[in-house]
């Protein structure tokens, strides 16, 4: 139940926060204006991502208010021992271009640690940009002072995120930059090795990528399996590099080029033809024979299994309206298209911009399903317009049942306990991904979730010590 403290909101209508795809503009359906942040925090931030780097210590150099968000992320992960703060105050702005506070602060933290970590991820911030901080000098000096430490050049500069690579993308790239020729020996067991770069959530063993790698007799490496910093850097000895996320692709491409090895960007697509093409690419890179009748036959079997899974999900979901959010799947329009083509009642897609990779799906939906709503997640109308207030009475009456949401933001906006709790498409990929998601949709229709408790937790899949979380017993 929403408590009202807002006195005079005039009747904000759903039309102000959403648009029919038939009338939407690609790739930015909305102009930039004030933003609202829904109480949904399951997506990963740079702290979560940095914690994936084994044995690494994170040091943020920023003002107190900016520090609060990242240090509390680490605290909620029960990982404060791998996190330190250097606070910028007003006087630092007048002393120099923040070189002193950054250099001496990081040095001080490292002297205070019980043991020097093999890697330190340093996060300068927006202020460093605008003060013109000479970070090359800072890093050179740090490397001189601590020759046994690898300094990872990260950023926490949200002011740049709408006009350039986001801090998330920069961090994934910086972590990929650690994979250098000098950092790895050939794998002692020999054979063909494949590394997935820049994944937040581990690629599942049943995913098409993992199965094809296994079929080729190759070995798959994931950062989540690396127990040490050295083990992570050993991934540089791989024969093939793969990225699933567009945010990981630049780092993967740089690593592959630097190491003179092939790199494949295999995004999470939901169209059979695109998956078929990417599987072929991967099979070719693994030395399998993608053009054989057997390979094609297997592909067809996979597709038949997907059709069966979707039909099964349809039988369970029925006419229930569906809402999809961009936090859950990297291509929400692609997923909406797949479901709409299979007779599901997709009503709304929650997103703030349309990724260039989705242009074909956007045009298809615009033509074939023009009444599909695109709903902005950061529109200020969202403050009062969610849950029951989002739907007009007649829509509610027509829908009957509560909405099935795919993703936490959609769940919050639709105020539904029936949702697939997923970010970044989890560890899914390929035909397996479609089948598994169909299964998760069925499960979501059968088991209610505590939306309020779940969606407010940060970093789905990370350790969480908040009240109600599984790891709570640690404290």
């Amino acid at each position, binding site marked *: *139940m*929403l*408590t*009202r*403290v*807002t*006195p*005079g*909101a*005039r009747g904000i209508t759903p039309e102000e926060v959403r648009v029919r795809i038939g009338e939407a503009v690609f790739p930015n359906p909305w102009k*930039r*204006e*004030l*933003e*609202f*942040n829904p*109480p949904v925090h399951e997506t990963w931030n740079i702290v979560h991502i940095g914690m994936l780097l084994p044995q690494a210590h994170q040091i943020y150099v920023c*003002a*107190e*208010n*900016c*520090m*609060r*968000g990242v*240090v*509390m992320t680490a*605290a*909620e992960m029960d990982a*404060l*021992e791998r*996190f*330190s703060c250097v*606070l910028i105050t007003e006087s630092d*702005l007048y002393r120099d271009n923040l070189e002193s*506070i950054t250099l*001496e*602060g990081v040095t001080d*933290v490292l002297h*205070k*640690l019980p043991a020097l970590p093999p890697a330190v991820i340093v996060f300068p911030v*927006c*202020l460093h940009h*605008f003060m013109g901080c000479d970070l090359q000098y800072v890093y050179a000096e740090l490397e001189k002072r601590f020759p046994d430490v690898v300094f990872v050049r990260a950023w*926490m500069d*949200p*002011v*740049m*995120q*709408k*006009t*350039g690579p986001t801090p998330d993308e920069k961090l994934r790239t910086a972590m990929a930059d650690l994979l250098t020729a000098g950092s790895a020996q050939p794998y002692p067991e020999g054979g063909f090795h494949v590394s997935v770069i820049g994944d937040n959530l581990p690629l599942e063993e049943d995913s098409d990528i993992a199965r094809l790698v296994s079929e080729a007799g190759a070995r798959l490496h994931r950062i989540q399996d690396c127990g040490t910093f050295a083990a992570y850097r050993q991934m540089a000895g791989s024969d093939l590099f793969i990225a699933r996320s567009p945010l990981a692709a630049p780092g993967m491409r740089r690593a592959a080029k630097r190491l003179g090895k092939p790199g494949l960007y295999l995004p999470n697509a939901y169209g059979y033809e695109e998956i078929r093409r990417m599987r072929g690419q991967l099979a070719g890179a693994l030395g399998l024979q993608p053009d054989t009748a057997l390979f094609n036959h297997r592909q067809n079997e996979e597709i038949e299994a997907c059709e069966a899974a979707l039909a099964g999900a349809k039988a369970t979901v029925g006419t229930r309206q569906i809402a999809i959010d961009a936090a859950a799947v990297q291509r929400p329009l692609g997923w909406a298209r797949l479901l709409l083509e299979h007779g599901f009642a997709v009503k709304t897609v929650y997103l703030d911009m349309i990724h260039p990779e989705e242009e074909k799906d956007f045009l298809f939906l615009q033509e074939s399903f023009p009444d599909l709503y695109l709903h902005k997640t*950061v529109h*200020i*109308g969202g*403050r009062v317009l969610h849950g029951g207030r989002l739907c007009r009475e007649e829509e509610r009456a027509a829908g009957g049942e509560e909405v099935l949401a795919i993703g936490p933001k959609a769940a919050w906006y639709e105020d539904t306990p029936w949702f697939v709790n997923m970010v970044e498409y989890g560890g899914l990929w390929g035909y397996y991904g479609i089948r598994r998601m169909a299964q998760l949709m069925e499960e979501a229709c059968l088991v209610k979730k505590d939306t*309020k408790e779940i969606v*407010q937790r940060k970093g789905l899949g990370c350790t969480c*010590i*908040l*009240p109600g979380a599984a790891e709570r017993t640690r404290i």
Partner: protein
Amino acid sequence: MRQTNRILPVYSGDVSGACSALFEMGGMVVIHDPSGCYSTYDTHDETRWYDTDSLIFLTGFTERDAMLGNDKKLIEDTAQAAALYRPRFIALCNSPIPYLNGTDFAGVCRVLEKRTGVPVFHVRTNGMHDYVQGVSQAFAQLAETVLVEEAVTAESTSFAGGPLKVNVLGMTPLDFAAPGAAEALEDKLEKASLRLHACWGMGRGVQSIGSSARADVNLAVSSSGEGAAQVLRERFGTPAVFGVPCGAFSERLLRETEKAAGDRPGQFTVPFLEVPENAAARRTVILIGEPVVMGSLAAALRMESGGSTKTVVAAATENSAPFIRKDRDFSFFGEEELAKRLRVLAREADSRGERIAVAADPLYRPVCPEGAELFPVPHLAFSGRIFLDRMPDLFEGDCASIMGGKWI
């Protein structure tokens, strides 16, 4: 180095403080920031975000906006949102970059006021201070803006009879996160024959804030209440008493509150500083945190222990000087300074053969002296949501119940 924290988190920042203070006031707060301060606030520092429709928004400015100013966009977007929501007032606050590029907030406020027809003010945050600064300034600005000018007459105050009217100042979930805290305080006042007139800024009392001049006395339950207390004193001569009615100290504080209303117009009093201490006590409890809350708890401890306990308050937040005893307590900045002071205190206690304990948020554990027991007093402004299910109700029970049931 005083500006580094190896393992301790930091307190909520000034932007979070400003937003928290104004959350229930029916206004609209616009944070001029790219993103981080807003999500930090609504994730870690605001327990009401999920269930309350308060209008707190973000400009989401870009690199280009930062370089070129682009105040026009700030004005246009804010005016548009105000037209949509019709807030009682508009407050602007900001993160470090608008501070750095010298955004003319006074000018922006004037233009916006003319455009929207509602009061507009700027809370001078810059992201480099703690929440106490933000809350205090926000309340002070609110007091300057929304308080109704009215003659304080015998009819308007309680001198004509009836219970004394009390404004509670500086009350936000950042310091008082236990469920029902505002109601518990109101009940406590009623039992002492005091009537809650207005509560700045949570609970039922927020409705009366505009007529705060009618109150007989201000009770500031945190140092965040100082800004509004000063404005109310300057404009209406209202006296203020600082303290939290907790444990055995409660009765004394409320008596002082009543007394201040009659005897000392315009005076500020801090009664917890006057609660005596037995220098010969064999146990020292060091209370770390916000000085008014911890100072009051310390006073309650001294009273409840019957002279067997000494206290030291380690004030962690800004502007704490008026609220600590110069000869016993101290304020600190950062982990290094705190750890050093705690080591010295532990050494001194050890040399005297005395016991030492710490009452603080559990996240302070890594810097507690070896062997010192930690009495947990979770504090939202420090550990955020982590101990949300264990927040102490400062207005109920004795020190033992407040400090995790551990105190004997």
